[in-house]
């Protein structure tokens, strides 16, 4: 949990435990509602805006998991860059408001059944397993350690990821470039 929030709660006198839950569950429900809006919204532009809200909600969940750096990266890269890219692409292509389900009720129904089936299988797996929260109270990874291990222990994957980013950059330019007549 963010330390600034804990400071705030110390002043109001509400127990940390209850306050953490009172904030977490509404955020989780809102995130899921926004995610449902992403996939069901009629207007694809609204979908992109709901996607930004969903990603911000996921960043809040990261804060609860003591991954502050990941939350910042999530907002910077996803909300700042990827959603902007989505909106640009939507603006460049014409079909903004198409019916999301395409008028085929049967396919929508089958998809809903498949998705709900997957959800219940996952719920079953999660609830059947006995999780032992070994590191629940242990201190989490700090930002200096994260940077240090990224530069020493995981330097090879880090370099590979930079190569992939470069390849994606060049590939996107080549694919998106207008062909000369």
């Amino acid at each position: 949990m963010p330390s600034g929030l804990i400071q705030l709660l110390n002043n109001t006198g509400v127990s940390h435990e209850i306050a953490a839950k009172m904030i977490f569950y509404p955020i989780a429900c809102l995130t899921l509602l926004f995610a449902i809006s992403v996939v069901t919204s009629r207007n694809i532009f609204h979908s992109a805006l709901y996607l930004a809200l969903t990603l911000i909600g996921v960043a809040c969940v990261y804060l609860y998991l003591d991954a502050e750096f990941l939350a910042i990266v999530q907002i910077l890269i996803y909300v700042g860059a990827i959603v902007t890219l989505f909106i640009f692409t939507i603006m460049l292509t014409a079909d903004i408001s198409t019916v999301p389900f395409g008028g085929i009720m049967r396919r929508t129904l089958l998809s809903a059944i498949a998705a709900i089936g997957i959800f219940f299988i996952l719920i079953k797996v999660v609830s059947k397993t006995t999780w032992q929260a070994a590191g629940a109270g242990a201190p989490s990874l700090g930002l200096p350690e994260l940077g240090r291990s990224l530069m020493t222990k995981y330097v090879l994957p880090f370099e590979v990821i930079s190569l992939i980013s470069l390849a994606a950059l060049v590939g996107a330019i080549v694919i998106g470039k207008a062909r000369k007549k």
Partner: protein
Amino acid sequence: MIPQSHYLILSAALFSIGVFGILTRKNAIGILMSIELILNAANINLITFNRFSGKPADGLGQIFALFVIAIAAASAVVGLGLVIAIYRNRKTILVNKMDLMKW
């Protein structure tokens, strides 16, 4: 402290919503958005398991999630480039109209 299983259920719900989106959306951009939802669900799982593992200070899950974000950005860039290229050539981004290479 919120129990581990609640994070996992949140992630499972997000994943299922993404699967539903991929199966129902006709717009190629909508499908790419659903893929982003699924990648986020995977990231929540990774960070949850990192937090509740025996050694959260090891940070393997967080670093893995960082790499997933980088790959997601790369895939979104290439995917949206493809969408623009297809739109330029065929004037549509509806996946049921992109049937040139289907039998």
